[in-house]
Structure formats: structure tokens, C-alpha cells
């Protein structure tokens, strides 16, 4: 049995004006377990807190109930008071007789009666309270960044600059991501490579950063502060630490007809290749599907020309296991496939291209060395049609495309249109749009310049179909404002394809037990207040893996994610919330219901040997809650059919006791 003290606060006249505080204190004195009951003008004042501290000492109280304002206001205060007096802070319960009683009721007898009932409920609860101690877990002071695009690069740099080691895992042979493929960036039109490559070099040279390129994460175990991650480093058949990136091997390689993924297949590369001049790490990679030596042992030219002796045809995939305190997901995006959009003839004509392909076509390092030429015949196009919202903003049941707005297309299309008109004033540029969305700093000004200064034809309406005919593309579209159907003979059609999360994100989310929305974007812990944290503690989000984003937004989110990681890694120990779920192993069936509703992946299962009631032993699967990960929502307690799962601080027995006390 507890020894409970009850402290009724007047809150000046805030409570005492509508509630007879003496009567409340007197009535609650009679409740089971109550050994002391008093009232005072301001319990939260120093004098009031002293009354509590003295009573705890004098009456050897094991629990206290403060009838006062909302626990959201002073629960922390009174917990500290209790702790100062040597009482476990979780032995404190608050009966909210101000916000939920004196302030909403006018009649003194009614208010008093309700205050007594609320007090009884708190007493009933505290009778079943148990001292709680927050759990502690150590923090591994190393971060993992998954994805080496601008998001991953920025996050890694920021964390590393704060002094914590960071590893970047990138599945491609080089970091850089999508931004490395871009030509210019809106709305300032500075060159992407000029601003990105210095950062890539910074990453490469940073003593706190390791890059695992051509690698992927295959296994994640553990929890916040203590992740165990397995990384698979694909064999690139070139010793990374020996290769100097001179490129001699590349120029000698006889296999020259491998579609170049960096230029989106618009030109070819060799079987041994360096994706682009500023690649980081700048080392060659052999494509095992193209290399004759690896496929059938015939060739070996590259090994012969490599003066450094970096070529190793026998190299195997390698696994690296490392511990991390925090994980940042920066897996980025891709354009959706255009296969389902027959109307735009993407698969029929080489001259119907996506915007990213257009970027490569205008990039000085691209397949045409920056000259805008048609992919089909290398002729300069005179009429270019840009189509917006291809696959974005589609109805969910349409089964092609995405429901959301891809966010970046309006701006990059304006950029493309403007740059085209700037470089080639003889070109007619049409942009078919549904809405032009420009909410960003200098964005609308940028778009207006495209229209006003560069004479881009913006037409409200959609392209209905594109039909290749001879060397032209017959574009049929509607102009909604002039209520006409247009027929344009275009030379080039550029589709602003919707973007979607990278395909690697879904299996990664499963490994991380991080939640995703139906579009496979990672979900945030809170859409407004915790935008760069995943609900899974210790997992953070950076860049387009969380939702479509442009570069400035990505970089700012990357910085935010980094600061969250730094905040976490700066701690030596993590202190948890003690009000968490726990499972009674003797009752748990291991049925997995709780695991399925846990938003944090805090529940795992272990096979344990038990002595059964019939004196046999059996190995049973039982749930185990990770106290460092559980946030204490209680979803599992209701999903659990056997009642094995309970929540400390809000235990089933406590809530039932409150119900009973209220319904007396």
C-alpha cells in the first residue's frame, strides 16, 4: 500500500474561486492510501513546493497527488520537487482541477464535486504507480549516410565538420548523384558542376569521411545510438587504393559500345570506365557484364596498360561491418519510366526525351559536348515543345504516374526554355503547362523572365499526343485560353517526367524499420515539427527520399539532418523516456501483432527457453521492447490479445483504476 500525500492548489482564485479546495482536501483524506492531505495558495511556488517536500519527509510519502493546473503546465515542476525530496519523480500524479474543472464550470458545488472525483482518480492511479527510471544507452559516435548525392554530401560534410566520423555509402561508382548530371541550376543559372564538384573534392579529402562507392547497405540491426550495419562493396575489379584515375586503361579498352548510364544511354562508354571527369573517387571500374576478360577470360588489355597495377580481375564483393550511432537516408530520386505514356511517343522516337536527357544534351560534358542537337540525326532543332506534368498529379486509379506534384519541373523547364532561347534565338520554344508553380525565392521572377525576356511560348493546356512523322514530331495539344486545338510540327519534345523515390529506398526502409508513405517516400517523425527525422529514432532524412525537392531545399534539409545527427552524437549516453511498453514474457505468444503496429520498430522477438506450467521446458518466441527506441504510444498494448504488453506510467491497471474511480 502506498502512503499518499494530496496537495490541493488554490491557484489564487483560479481554482479556489469555483472549487472549495478545503472540502476537496478533506474528502480526499479519506481515500485508501492517503495519509496526508492539505491545500495551499500556490503549490507551484517555492513555498508550495516546500510544503510538498516537507510532507514527503515527515509522512514518509511513497506517492503524491497534486490537484492543480494541467500536468502539461507543472507536471515537470512537481516531479522535480518530488525528486529533490528523494521520491521517484514518476510517483507524482496531477489532478487537473483548473483547466478541466474550475475554469470550465461556474458552480461551486459542481466544481468541488468534480474536483474530488478527479482527485480520486489520480489517487487510484498513484496507488498503482511504480518508481520508474529512464533507461540509458551508449552512443556510437559515427554516422552513416546512405546516398552520395548532394543531400548525402552536404549532410556528411556538416557532420564531419563538427568532428564526427561519417561514412557515405553510394551504390554508383562515384558520388555526385543527380546534381552531377545537371547543366545549370535555377534560378541563378550557375553551373551545377562548378558548385558541386568542389564539395565532392571536400568529401574525398575530409579526414573524417570515408566513401564506400559502388556499395550498398545489406543489413541493419540495432537501434538509435547503436546500429550495426553491414555494407556490401561490389567488386569493381580495380584496386581503389592503387588506381590513380589516369584513364589509360579506359582509352585502351576495346569494348566501346556499352551504353553510358551517366549520359542516360545517349552515347557509349568502355567496359572499364570512369563515369565522368570529376568523379569521386576518381578510379576506374570494370563493368563485369561488358568486360570480355571477366566474361570469358579473353583480353586483359587494361591490366597490361595499367602502370600502377591496379587491375584485379579476381576481385570479389566485400562485406564491411560497422557500428553507427545515427543513419541518414539520402537515397534521392529518379524519373519515372515513360513506358506507359504511349501518347508522347517516347519509345517510338529518339527525339522525344526527358528533361534529364535534355540536361545532358545541353551539358558541355554531355554526349554532344553541349551543342543542342537532336538525338536522332544530330540536327539542330528549331521547334521544341516542353510538356509539363508528365506523370505528376495523376489520379491514384489512373495506374500510370504519381498523385503528387513533382515540384521541380516547373522551374527546370523554365530554365531549359530560357537557356535554349538564350543560346539559340532562332528556336521556337513552347511550354505546355497546367499550372506554373513557382513558390520559391526568385522563382516567379525567373519564370516571368523566360516569358517576358526570352519569348518562351507558355500555353495553358496539355499535349494530347505526339506522332513522329518523317523527321518531325506532330504535336497535338489544346490551348485552353484561346479554346483551340493546336498542331505543332516539333523537332524535339521534352517531357517533364514525374520523379519518384529511388527503388533502393523500399528495401532500405524495411531494414531500417522506417516508415514510408504509399509513394515510397520516407515519412517524417512529424510533418511540421520534426521534418528531417524518421519516426524510427536515430534515422534521419535528407533530400528527395522524403519528398520532391530542389537543390536549395535539399541542401537546407541536409544541413538540418546533420545538425540533428550532431545533436545525437554529441551525447555520451541516451536517456530514454521511462514511460514505455514492456512485455510480460510469461504471457507473450510471440504472435507479432505488436510488432506490426509499432511505428518505431521497437519490438523484436527472441526465442527463449521457458519452464512451462506443466513442468516441461519449451522454446517460445517472445516480444522484447527496446527501451531506447520505444516512445510509449501504447499502440502495441491494444494490439496484444493476451495483455502481455503493457505501458509503464499508463498501465492497463492504472487506467482501469482511473475509470473505476471516475465511475464510482
Amino acid at each position, binding site marked *: 500500500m502506498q502512503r499518499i500525500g494530496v496537495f490541493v492548489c488554490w491557484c489564487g482564485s483560479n481554482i479556489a474561486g469555483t472549487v472549495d479546495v478545503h472540502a476537496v482536501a478533506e474528502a480526499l483524506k479519506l481515500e485508501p492510501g492517503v495519509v496526508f492531505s492539505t491545500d495551499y495558495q500556490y503549490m507551484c511556488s517555492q513555498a508550495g513546493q516546500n510544503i510538498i517536500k516537507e510532507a514527503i519527509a515527515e509522512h514518509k510519502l511513497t506517492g503524491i497527488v497534486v490537484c492543480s493546473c*494541467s*500536468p*502539461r*503546465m507543472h507536471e515537470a515542476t512537481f516531479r522535480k520537487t518530488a525528486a529533490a525530496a528523494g521520491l521517484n519523480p514518476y510517483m507524482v500524479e496531477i489532478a*487537473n482541477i*483548473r*483547466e*478541466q*474543472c474550475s*475554469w*470550465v*464550470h*461556474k*458552480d461551486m458545488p*459542481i*466544481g468541488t*464535486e*468534480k474536483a474530488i*472525483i*478527479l482527485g480520486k*482518480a489520480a489517487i487510484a492511479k498513484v496507488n498503482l504507480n511504480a518508481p520508474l527510471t529512464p533507461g540509458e544507452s551508449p552512443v556510437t559516435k559515427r554516422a552513416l549516410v546512405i546516398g552520395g548525392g548532394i543531400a548525402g554530401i552536404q549532410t556528411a560534410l556538416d557532420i564531419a565538420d563538427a568532428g564526427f566520423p561519417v561514412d557515405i555509402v553510394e551504390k554508383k561508382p562515384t558520388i555526385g548523384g543527380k546534381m552531377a548530371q545537371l547543366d545549370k541550376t535555377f534560378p541563378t543559372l550557375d553551373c551545377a558542376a562548378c558548385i558541386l564538384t568542389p564539395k565532392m573534392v571536400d568529401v574525398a579529402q575530409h579526414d573524417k569521411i570515408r566513401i564506400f562507392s559502388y556499395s550498398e547497405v545489406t543489413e541493419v540491426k540495432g537501434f538509435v545510438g547503436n546500429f550495426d550495419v553491414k555494407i556490401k562493396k561490389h567488386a569493381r575489379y580495380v584496386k581503389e587504393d592503387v588506381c590513380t584515375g589516369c584513364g589509360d586503361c579506359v582509352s585502351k579498352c576495346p569494348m566501346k559500345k556499352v551504353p553510358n548510364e551517366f549520359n542516360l544511354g545517349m552515347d557509349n562508354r568502355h567496359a572499364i570506365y570512369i563515369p565522368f571527369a570529376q568523379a569521386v573517387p576518381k578510379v576506374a571500374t570494370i563493368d563485369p557484364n561488358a568486360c570480355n576478360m571477366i566474361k570469358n577470360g579473353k583480353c586483359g588489355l587494361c591490366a597490361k596498360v595499367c602502370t600502377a597495377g591496379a587491375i584485379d580481375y579476381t576481385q570479389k564483393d566485400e562485406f564491411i561491418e560497422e557500428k553507427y550511432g545515427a543513419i541518414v537516408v539520402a537515397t534521392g530520386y529518379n524519373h519515372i519510366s515513360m513506358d506507359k505514356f504511349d501518347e508522347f511517343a517516347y519509345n517510338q522516337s529518339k527525339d522525344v526525351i526527358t528533361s534529364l536527357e535534355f540536361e545532358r544534351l545541353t551539358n558541355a560534358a554531355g554526349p554532344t559536348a553541349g551543342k543542342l542537337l537532336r538525338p536522332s540525326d544530330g540536327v539542330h532543332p528549331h521547334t521544341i515543345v516542353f510538356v509539363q506534368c508528365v506523370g505528376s498529379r495523376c489520379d491514384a486509379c489512373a495506374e500510370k504516374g504519381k498523385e503528387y506534384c513533382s515540384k521541380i519541373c516547373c522551374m527546370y523547364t523554365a530554365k531549359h526554355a530560357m537557356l535554349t532561347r538564350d543560346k539559340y534565338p532562332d528556336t521556337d520554344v513552347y511550354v505546355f503547362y497546367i499550372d506554373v508553380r513557382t513558390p520559391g525565392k526568385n522563382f516567379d521572377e525567373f519564370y516571368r523572365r523566360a516569358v517576358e525576356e526570352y519569348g518562351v511560348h507558355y500555353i495553358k493546356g496539355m499535349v494530347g499526343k505526339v506522332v513522329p512523322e518523317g523527321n518531325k514530331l506532330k504535336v497535338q495539344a489544346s490551348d485552353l485560353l484561346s479554346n483551340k486545338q493546336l498542331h505543332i510540327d516539333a523537332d524535339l519534345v521534352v517531357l517533364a517526367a514525374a520523379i519518384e523515390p529511388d527503388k533502393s529506398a523500399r528495401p532500405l526502409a524495411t531494414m531500417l524499420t522506417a*516508415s514510408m508513405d504509399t509513394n515510397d517516400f520516407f*515519412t517524417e*517523425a*512529424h*510533418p511540421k515539427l520534426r521534418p528531417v527525422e524518421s*519516426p524510427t529514432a536515430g534515422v534521419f532524412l535528407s533530400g528527395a527520399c522524403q519528398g520532391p525537392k530542389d537543390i536549395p531545399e535539399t541542401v537546407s534539409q541536409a544541413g538540418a539532418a546533420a545538425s540533428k545527427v550532431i545533436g545525437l552524437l554529441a551525447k555520451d549516453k541516451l536517456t530514454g523516456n521511462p*514511460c514505455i511498453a514492456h512485455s510480460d514474457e510469461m504471457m507473450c505468444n510471440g504472435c507479432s501483432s505488436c510488432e506490426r*503496429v509499432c*511505428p518505431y520498430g521497437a519490438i523484436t522477438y527472441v526465442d527463449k527457453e521457458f519452464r512451462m506450467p506443466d513442468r516441461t521446458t519449451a522454446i517460445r518466441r517472445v516480444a522484447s521492447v527496446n527501451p531506447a527506441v520505444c*516512445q*510509449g*504510444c*501504447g*499502440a502495441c*498494448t*491494444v*494490439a496484444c490479445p493476451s495483455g502481455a504488453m503493457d*505501458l509503464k506510467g*499508463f498501465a*492497463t491497471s492504472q*487506467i*482501469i483504476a*482511473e*475509470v*473505476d474511480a*471516475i*465511475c*464510482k
Partner: protein
Amino acid sequence: MQMNEHKPLIVAFCCNWCSYAGADLAGNNRLNYPAEVKIIRVPCSCRVNPMFILRAFQRGADGVIICGCHPGDCHYTSGNYYTRRRMAMLFSMLDYLGIEKERTRVEWVSAAEGAKFAATMNDFVATVTALGENKRLEDLRCKK
């Protein structure tokens, strides 16, 4: 009127982050609602076990209302989505057993919706008052 003589007893389960704060805001703004409403604080609406609801009715409650964050705003990201399914199913079952469906309710009240909290409670108390005493889920032993 006979009906009005019975003061109903209402148990309101409020999630700590939104609805309990919404109730506090109703207090801050001195928005009155009947004292028959007694609030129990839970971390999330998904902590509310159907057993608690039945227990309340057994012990003499005439109505039980569960308040949580608006869908999409759950502090724990998904708790209230589970609440929504569980309570939809439970309420449908109670109705199937012939128990007045108006006695149970789920309402989403954000921390900013003090006025909605008070209005909801006023409405719920009025609805339950009109139904009269809970007879179909009562335990006479508790009414002595």
C-alpha cells in the same frame, strides 16, 4: 421532464499531445461544458483498449468519447489511424449487439481546438442525456 433528471456520466479519453491540450485550451478560454465530462489522460488515443470502454460502461458511464489528434497529426505518426480502425470496428460491434451507437464516439481535437473540444463535449453530453441512462451495458452490481 423525466429524461433531464438523469445526469449522465461521460468518460473522455484524451491523448496527451492534442486533445488533452485542446481541453486545456478550452479551460484557458473559459469555454464551459458540463461537469459530467471526466477526462482521462492517455499518451495516445491508440492506448485506449476496448476493455476500458466496456469497463466504463460497466461501472456506470453513460457515454464514452475518445479524443485524439487529427489523422495525419499523431504525435506517434500512426497511433490514431489504429484507433480509427479499432473503434470503428468496436462501435459497429456494439451497435450489432443492439447497444445505442450514440453512446460511443471518436472525435479528433487538436491542441488548437479548445472551442471544438467544448462544443464536442456539449454536443456529446446532450446526445447522451437524450438517450437516458445506460441500460444495455450496465452492471447492476455497480449501481447499488
